[in-house]
């Protein structure tokens, strides 16, 4: 029922530390002033994490804050505020929720909106956008925000990777993309130096990049423990445990978090503790951001013996050695290579399977490695970037696994008006029955 707050689906003790991370990141934006630090409104997976960390710039994660508003079912008033100035209800609700919040704060002369979740988010000194392939709001949202915070400078960089084309060898294009991304990152550094009035400490940046490489590796090592049957950790948890990687990359805390998580998972495996008991079906969360206001649905799956040992969403990294990055002494060029190679990591595999695509190859790899019986996609209506193209992925997947059950759920990341619990559970039940029939046939 809409008015009940859903508890997050957290099975691991380590994941319970996540709210601290999120609160910490929010309060950092509030404390920055007195600590003499600059705050940058920033977006996840924009390749700028290490630059900010190395320059003591405090990131204000709009997506995170909107997610918190959604999880607390507190977003509607901000969505409406944005709507009142003609922002369409069909736009990215991460953005409109944040913009609505900013609008209220600006109207109050900077005073925090009353009842802002977890104390709210601080006013930025700069906005770092990225007109990259990840989504349009990453450069439109900063523009829209600047309309209400006219004194806040906006810098938008651009990082691309070669588009998928089965008839083209993307390796021939990598150099162009890496050169471009490196120059764009360099421009980001220049902008940050201008705003902070500090010079970049290149050794510190190199060290930060090294730390995030280590974090990437540790993250994958940790998550690959979930291959174990029964799986010790579910996607419901992963929607929490992604926080350090996604929002705190390049910090020791992030690294340490996964040390703890890894230890806990190893312990669970040793004691044969699984997410669901008994574990009946293993399903991949194949694409899509979750409905932050309905994370409890993962528990609903688990309660019926369905577990998600793996998800594509928020697994924003790979074992660095698997990317086999060319050696370079320029940390920015290293980030660029890591960027291009990560986003094109499944291209070669896709070439080997006519009719396939890299996105689908990634899903196939996980289905095989994690022994999955089915796939669930989530399509959020307000976010084209992650959710347009899902039907195509599902179709392509069906060509490989003929009768494997696939469920495409529809909802949103923030806007609860798209959600009907009874209806969602009804679909989940039917999906589980298709899983049953499928497993039976598999024998």
């Amino acid at each position, binding site marked *: 029922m809409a008015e009940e707050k859903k508890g997050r689906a957290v099975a691991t003790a380590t994941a319970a530390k996540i709210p601290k991370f999120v609160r910490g990141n929010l309060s950092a934006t509030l404390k920055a002033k007195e600590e003499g630090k600059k705050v940058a409104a920033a977006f996840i997976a924009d390749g700028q994490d290490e630059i900010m960390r190395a320059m003591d710039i405090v990131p204000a994660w709009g997506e995170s804050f909107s997610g918190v508003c959604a999880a607390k079912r507190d977003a509607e008033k901000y969505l409406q505020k944005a709507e009142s100035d003609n922002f369409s209800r069909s736009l990215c609700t991460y953005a409109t929720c944040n913009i609505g919040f900013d609008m209220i704060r600006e109207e109050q002369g900077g005073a925090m909106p009353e009842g802002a979740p977890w104390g709210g988010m601080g006013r930025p000194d700069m906005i770092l956008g990225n007109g990259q392939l990840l*989504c349009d709001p990453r450069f439109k949202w900063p*523009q829209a925000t600047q309309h209400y915070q006219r004194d806040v400078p906006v810098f938008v960089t651009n990082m691309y990777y070669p588009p998928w084309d089965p*008839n083209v060898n993307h390796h021939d294009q990598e150099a162009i993309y890496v050169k471009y991304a490196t120059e*764009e990152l360099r421009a980001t550094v220049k902008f940050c130096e201008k705003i902070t009035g500090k010079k970049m400490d290149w050794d510190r940046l190199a060290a930060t990049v090294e730390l995030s490489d280590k974090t990437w590796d540790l993250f994958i090592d940790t998550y690959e423990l979930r291959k174990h049957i029964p799986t010790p950790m579910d996607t419901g948890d992963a929607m929490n445990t992604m926080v350090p990687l996604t929002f705190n990359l390049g910090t020791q805390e992030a690294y340490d978090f996964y040390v703890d998580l890894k230890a806990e998972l190893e312990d669970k495996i040793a004691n044969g503790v699984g997410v669901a008991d008994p574990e009946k079906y293993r399903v991949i969360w194949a694409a899509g951001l979750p409905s932050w206001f309905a994370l409890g649905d993962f528990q609903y799956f688990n309660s019926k013996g369905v577990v998600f040992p793996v998800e594509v969403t928020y697994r924003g990294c790979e074992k660095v050695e698997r990317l086999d990055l060319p050696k370079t002494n320029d940390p920015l060029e290293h980030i660029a290579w890591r960027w291009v190679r990560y986003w094109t990591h499944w291209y070669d595999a896709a070439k080997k399977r006519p*009719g396939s695509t890299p996105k689908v190859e990634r899903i196939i790899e996980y289905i095989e490695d994690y022994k999955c019986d089915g796939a669930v996609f989530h*399509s959020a209506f307000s976010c084209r970037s992650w959710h347009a193209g899902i039907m195509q992925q599902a179709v392509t997947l069906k060509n490989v696994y003929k009768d494997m059950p696939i469920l495409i759920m529809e909802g949103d990341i923030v806007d609860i008006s798209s959600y009907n619990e009874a209806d969602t559970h009804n679909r989940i039940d039917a999906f589980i029955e298709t899983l049953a029939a499928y497993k039976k046939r598999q024998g």
Partner: protein
Amino acid sequence: MTELRDGNGLAAAEKLYTQYGSRARELKASGKKVIGYLTALGPVEIMTAAGVVPIRLKGNVSEAISKGDAYMESIVCPFVRNVFDAAVKGKYDFLDGMVLPHQCDSIDRTNETWSYTLKLPYWHFLNVPHVTDDPSITFMKEILRIFITTLEKFTGTKITDEAIANAVKAHNENRRLMRELYDLRKSNPPLISGVEMMKVLVAAMSLPVDESSALIKAVTEEVKERKPAGDAKGKRIMIIGDQIDDIAVIDAIESTGACLVMDDLSLGAKMYWQDVDATADPVQGIAERYLRKLKIPTTFVGSADTYEGILEERFGHMKKYVNEFKVDGAILFIYKYCDPYGFEVPAIKSYIEAAGVPVLYLEDEYSTSSLARVKTRIEAFLEMIA
């Protein structure tokens, strides 16, 4: 195509508008290769230089999306969905290939849906950047060169810089001619109606550049002959939006006695106001035009020091139009699910209103299903500014 005689330019445009793509179909039958493309970012100069027939794709606002829904999400831009639906239904069965320029998520994220569903012999995704700094220009040149090579591979003929330079000349001329026709809208009442103009704009984007230029010339000569008729009471309206490629909305405006005198549409002024500079390396000029000159919301602009300055960079051209074409009111017509335009609405609206021009903001699908409602809004807006 129908021979252009004096005084039948508009009739020819009408025919090409109602039977969209008929000329490309003819040319295909005569052995030409036809390449479809989406949006104002399709580098027509290069396609022309390659000797293929470029046609900018449109949908059909009065046809409900059906077959396409089996492959493409309904959260995708309704324009893109409608064009895709038309393609799936075989309306563009004469295409040899397609070029999808990276304008927005709705195009980028459906690239595979398009290519894997339509399975055309030639396919290219042109990865146009969203920012305009020098590294981006260099990058744009690189991807244009990649585009050129794939076209060469497909057609089996080299695309010389000379051919590109000539194509640039032809398209600059085409744009000059269209601006000349736009000038005839400055009189009061305008010599050419918004509905007629829309038909010409649509017809023009379905033709090889020389035929397009010939058509525009013929229309201009025909329209020049007209004498400014009657006393002009009708309000002078400007429409702003992306690809509005049907007369339905324009007719809704003009049937109330107002006249559409100017646009900032992606198949109108946005297309025809900026030429390609003749540069030593012709690709340089093309890169600069598409990246730095085109005023579209998917290209980030923000180099000015003040926000006011940035607004001028982004929307200043609209203020010029307002003055040059004596605009009384502006209609901002945005498609649902369009992030690039959607996030600009408050900025554009307040900017134009600050210029003393009332703005009606309409958000709709690429469909006539709600035309009656849209019409009521437009009429009320005109009653309001009367």
